[in-house]
């Protein structure tokens, strides 16, 4: 089956999901990001790589936070950046996603960072753009958020370099989470031997174990002896309804507190993709505590996005590498 993310010579053409990317490409992105981490600490926080290129942030679903990190990344690579929030304004006038994209291509955009509420939207756009255009998925429905998955494993690698010896737990709303799916694929592809998911049955997708994870419903059992805890955000609209009775009850059973954290290894680290619901999925003391690496995640997020953009913009359809 043709992989829409790769050129025929195996080089990265789009970043649409972690699934389907070989380990080699994941490592290439992570290693390149290492080089970009230092750029932010210089006098001039910019490299000239994408000078003259135009990166278009196309957000069909609003997210100031994610959009900002992509903007910073593109600007640090010296690209010109356009950000568009296509909420319903032009869409409601009958303009389709592809109309919007075609218009921007006509204005010579080189790369699109796309966020959309529908799973598969980035794949859909990627399927219909000309060869020289690159698409980065910044989150599509429940499907994928590959740069988040990459920055999470990048962060883990910084603190726990030996991925082949880790036990990782992902806790929370796996069912609706594109972050969880991306994390799972990134971790399993990079050889993490044990990935656990911890959630009530209402927040787990069907046959989730086929993604290569171990399922726990009891958080205490699931956290036992893990090296890494990856918390997920619980969306407001799911806090009470048919999925869960209340935010309070959720916090009691699946919220990460100091008292649950001690069940993990003493040097375990805690990640969260943000924005956090303090007191719902995570206790403030843990979020701000010694074991939290939530702020480094944000810093590394920019390096990862720079790496992805730098690799994509330099990719060639013919792949004429010597």
């Amino acid at each position, binding site marked *: 089956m043709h992989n829409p993310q790769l050129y025929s010579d195996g*080089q990265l053409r789009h970043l649409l999901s972690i699934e389907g990317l070989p380990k080699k490409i994941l490592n*290439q992105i992570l*290693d*390149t990001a*290492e*080089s*970009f*981490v*230092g*750029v932010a600490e*210089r*006098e*001039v926080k*910019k*490299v*000239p*790589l994408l000078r003259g290129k135009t990166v278009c942030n196309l957000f069909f679903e609003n997210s100031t936070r994610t959009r900002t990190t992509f903007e910073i990344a593109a600007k640090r690579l010296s690209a010109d950046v356009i950000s568009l929030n296509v909420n319903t304004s032009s869409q409601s006038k009958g303009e389709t996603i592809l109309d919007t994209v075609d218009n921007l291509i006509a204005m010579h955009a080189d790369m699109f960072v796309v966020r959309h509420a529908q799973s598969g939207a980035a794949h859909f756009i990627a399927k219909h753009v000309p060869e020289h255009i690159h698409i980065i998925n910044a989150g599509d429905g429940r499907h994928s958020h590959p740069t988040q998955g990459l920055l999470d494993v990048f962060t883990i690698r910084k603190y726990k370099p030996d991925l082949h010896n880790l036990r990782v737990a992902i806790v929370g709303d796996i069912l609706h989470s594109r972050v969880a799916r991306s994390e799972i694929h990134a971790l399993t592809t990079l050889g993490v031997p044990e990935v656990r998911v911890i959630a009530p049955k209402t927040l787990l997708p069907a046959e989730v174990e086929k993604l290569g994870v171990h399922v726990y419903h009891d958080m205490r059992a699931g956290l036992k002896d893990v090296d890494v805890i990856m918390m997920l955000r619980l969306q407001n609209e799911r806090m009470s309804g048919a999925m869960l009775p209340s935010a309070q009850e959720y916090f009691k059973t699946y919220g990460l507190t100091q008292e649950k954290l001690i069940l993990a290894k003493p040097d375990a680290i805690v990640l969260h993709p943000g924005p956090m619901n303090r007191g719902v999925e995570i206790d403030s003391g843990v979020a701000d505590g010694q074991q939290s690496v939530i702020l480094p995640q944000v810093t590394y997020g920019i390096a990862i996005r720079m790496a992805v953009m*730098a*690799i994509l*913009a*330099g*990719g*060639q359809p013919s792949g*004429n*590498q*010597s």
Partner: protein
Amino acid sequence: MTTDQSQLPDAEALINILADKLQPLLQKNTALVGIQSGGVWVMQRLLAKLAKTMATHTIEHGTLDVSFYRDDYAKRGLKPGNQPSQIAFDVENKHIILIDDVFFTGRTTRAAMNELFDYGRPASITLIALVNRGGRELPISPQITAMDLSLKPTENLQLIQLADGQLGFTLKLLTPSNHQAVSKHA
């Protein structure tokens, strides 16, 4: 395609020459910067040689990987395996000695200077190279070299690290198909 390797210069001998030429340049405010990857090897070797005659632990030094500053990125993309640049000292007002292994077109030097300036404004930059192989394409040339050659554009002289840790040279002949790619690159 490989040519007769026996005629190649002796890298270790050249390092000794270069070390002798470098020593007078070193002052209190000097810092060494090696360009990945050959320039870094040369720098390390120079530091080791100089340590026999002077206190080198006070000489500040760093490395540059100019991948993000290359002028052929649009054509060749980012190659895998780039290393983070490591300049731990303050570049501002330093006399920088930029070290490369083989000087060819001058494009790498341009990229390295651009990158250096993003760390700060140095007092001066001096370029030293083990070999100037000839063929510059920019108004840049090394102030100090251990050897000057004039190789054909189709010849590609490369510094390599041998199994015993010593440095050596290889000379490859470029085929027409990869000629352009490599001449842009070196």
